[in-house]
């Protein structure tokens, strides 16, 4: 009797569950269909194009289009022709761009956030808006502004001239900034190549023209990330800060040992978004320099576009896009690993125990052992 009732109840409940599941899927269907249509299918089709000989006429799914294996990838990665050295150059340019933009914009954004987070600051609203403003302006408009500011007779060079220095011809200067004016390097560096680009060129750093774009990127994106940091800062409880103050931590220690560790999830977000944005840089190049001078502002995203649309090398364009995708994933994983919460090292643990023993001797036990462990455990796990 009871057993029968139990089965009945269970069956009815599972019927209810099924009804809920169906309506659940029904409600999510529009998003799933839209995502599938505008994201999944294009990605799958691009994947197909990257291994096909599609020439850009008619459907890539038509029977005239053939599977050609990794040939398109080969042309940009190991065939040794112009496509490979172009891709190598683009990768080199973007590598330096990312290496410089990501840390600078993160530090600047954090500094701005700390500045406008201070209670003492008058007109905080004004400054918050002002710093955020470049981020909401269209990148095309800012690029055009940059072309004017950094022209030979532009405002930037006028300012540099006050100090008696003749400014460079920014967007026309192809020299790598770490070459320091040397026009050719030692044979040991120039005779070896990776992806068709010599070691000497790899080590040359961004060109002067690319440096102007680096400043542009820092200028436009710092505001956005400032907002993220600001939100995180306002979420921090004052208690921890106060406790640290009571323990006699000076402002520098409070920032590096208390505030910064608590910002780790935001830091992860900012650096990830920054990295992705850096590897996708396109608008500035397209409206500004189109890869000039001497290909030093060529980026993989722009190269993928020109390969497909200007040269009808659709497979090659799609292949570059997928390689870019892999690069972004790899960088994100590396960065995730670097920022991951690790067990506190022995040396550090010893320092902490010694410090807390000392404070136990001197005064009451402290709430703050270290910013490393207790402060933001659960939230952090959510964030990463």
């Amino acid at each position, binding site marked *: 009797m009871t057993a029968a009732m139990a089965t009945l109840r269970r069956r009815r409940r599972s019927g209810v569950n099924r009804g809920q*599941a169906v309506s659940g899927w029904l409600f999510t269907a529009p998003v799933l*269909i839209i995502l599938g249509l505008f994201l999944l299918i294009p990605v799958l089709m691009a994947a197909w194009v990257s291994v096909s000989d599609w020439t850009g006429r008619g459907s890539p799914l038509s029977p005239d289009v053939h599977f050609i294996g990794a040939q398109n990838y080969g042309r940009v990665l190991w065939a040794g022709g112009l496509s490979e050295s*172009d891709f190598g150059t683009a990768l080199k340019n973007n590598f330096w761009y990312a290496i410089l933009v990501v840390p600078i914009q993160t530090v600047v954004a954090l500094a701005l956030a700390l500045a406008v987070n201070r209670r003492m600051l008058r007109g905080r609203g004004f400054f918050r808006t002002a710093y955020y403003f470049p981020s909401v302006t269209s990148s095309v408009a800012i690029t055009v502004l940059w072309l004017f500011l950094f022209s030979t*007779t532009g405002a930037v060079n006028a300012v540099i001239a006050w100090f008696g220095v003749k400014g460079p011809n920014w967007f026309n200067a192809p020299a790598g900034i770490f070459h320091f004016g040397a*026009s*050719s390097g030692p044979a040991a560096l120039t005779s070896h190549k990776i992806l068709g680009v010599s070691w000497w060129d790899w080590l040359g750093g961004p060109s002067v023209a690319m440096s102007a774009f680096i400043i542009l990127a820092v200028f436009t994106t710092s505001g956005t990330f400032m907002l993220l940091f600001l939100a995180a800062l306002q979420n921090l409880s004052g208690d921890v800060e106060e406790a640290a103050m009571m323990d006699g931590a000076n402002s520098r220690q409070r920032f590096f040992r208390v505030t910064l560790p608590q910002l780790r999830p935001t830091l992860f977000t900012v650096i990830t978004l920054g990295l992705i944005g850096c590897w996708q840089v396109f608008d500035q190049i397209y409206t500004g320099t189109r890869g000039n001078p001497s290909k030093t502002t060529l980026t993989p995203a722009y190269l993928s576009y020109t390969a497909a*649309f*200007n040269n009808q090398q659709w497979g090659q364009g799609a292949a570059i896009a997928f390689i870019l995708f892999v690069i972004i994933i790899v960088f994100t994983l590396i960065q995730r690993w670097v920022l991951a919460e690790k067990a506190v090292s022995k040396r550090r643990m010893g320092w902490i125990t010694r410090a807390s023993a000392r404070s136990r001797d001197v005064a009451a036990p402290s709430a703050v052992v270290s910013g490393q462990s207790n402060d933001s455990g659960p939230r952090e796990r959510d964030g990463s």
Partner: protein
Amino acid sequence: MKISRAVAVIAAAGLAVGLTACGSGFSSGGSTQDNTKPLSILIGSSGDAETAAVKSAVAAWSKTSGIKATVTVASDLNQQLAQGFSSGKPADVFYLSTDALAGYASNGSLYSYGDKLSNKSDFYPNLVKSFTYDNKLVCAPKDFSTLQLIINTDLWSKAGLTDADIPTTWDQLQTVATKLTTGSQTGLVIGGEYARIGAFMTEAGGNLMNADSTKATADSDANLKALDYVKQNLIAGDFKFAADVGAGWGGEAFGKQLGAMTIEGNWITGSQTADYPNIKYEVAPLPKGPAGAGTLQFSNCWGIAADSANKTGALDLVQKLTTKSDQLAFAKAFGVMPSIQSAAGDWKKEFPNLAPFLDAAAYAQNVPAAKGASDVVTDFNSQVAKLATGDPKTILSSTQANLEALLK
């Protein structure tokens, strides 16, 4: 288990919907022909004057033929063409540059109608060569431009030079350029790219490729001679590249009097009138090099899409747009040169001081048009921009290797 099956079903449904949607986007081409179907014309315009001139010419044709035709100005011609071809619904008639021709001709996007043109023999033979693919004229040359030497007459006389000093050899060019170099002013300022330096190559008897772009000739002695000559003058300081004096192109440097001479095409007249109306200048033929006169020519053609639903109408329109009267109207509106020989006399009468540009039609050389050549030219440009410190031989041999790779 159940959930994953549901996901699979929905994903499959989404995929099916998506693919059918795409299916309608990628029509199979080979559409049925209809002589009355309206035409769309896609142009890359240099400005309002060009747009208005093309629109009025097309409207006049619409009136007589009774076929509706709309002119669209592309913001990025290459991109919009590519989108049209891949969707199977391209514009019927469009501007097509020499470097894009081989790519589209090889994938069958273009309707090769050259043999059907009644005025085929009237086009300049060199232009016909640049729009020939597989030994057939693919499309009708729209118009063309050549490079010549532009001289600032005020700066010229200020330096004590007269008409007798107009250079006819490389040595003379070097002499006057040195005389014209004072202070912030450089004798000759040109764009640091193949499309200008190539003129010196042709004067020395070379070029990057042969006339039909079937053979790479980049590493010839003639080209080396040309690059050595330019390099030597760059080092001496009487030649400079526009980028190195802070100008975007030769015409800007010339207008700002940063250069007393430049090498540009007939398009410079428009920009000088608009931006630097006070600069007085004169067009002279480029000096002869070791192999005689030489220059480069640039052109576009009127492409017709293979997928067009009204090829007869499109051909009729192109036939009309390449007539003498239409081409002269275009020349007056935006300063191009007619692509047909029979219009030369009228054009010279209209623009006597620009005659050297048209005279060059007899000896002007084509830019490389093999599939992928524009990439190689871009690479050449990126190296030649650093010519003053670079090695001409290395530049030419790497360009040779890249061009040979295209022909395999």
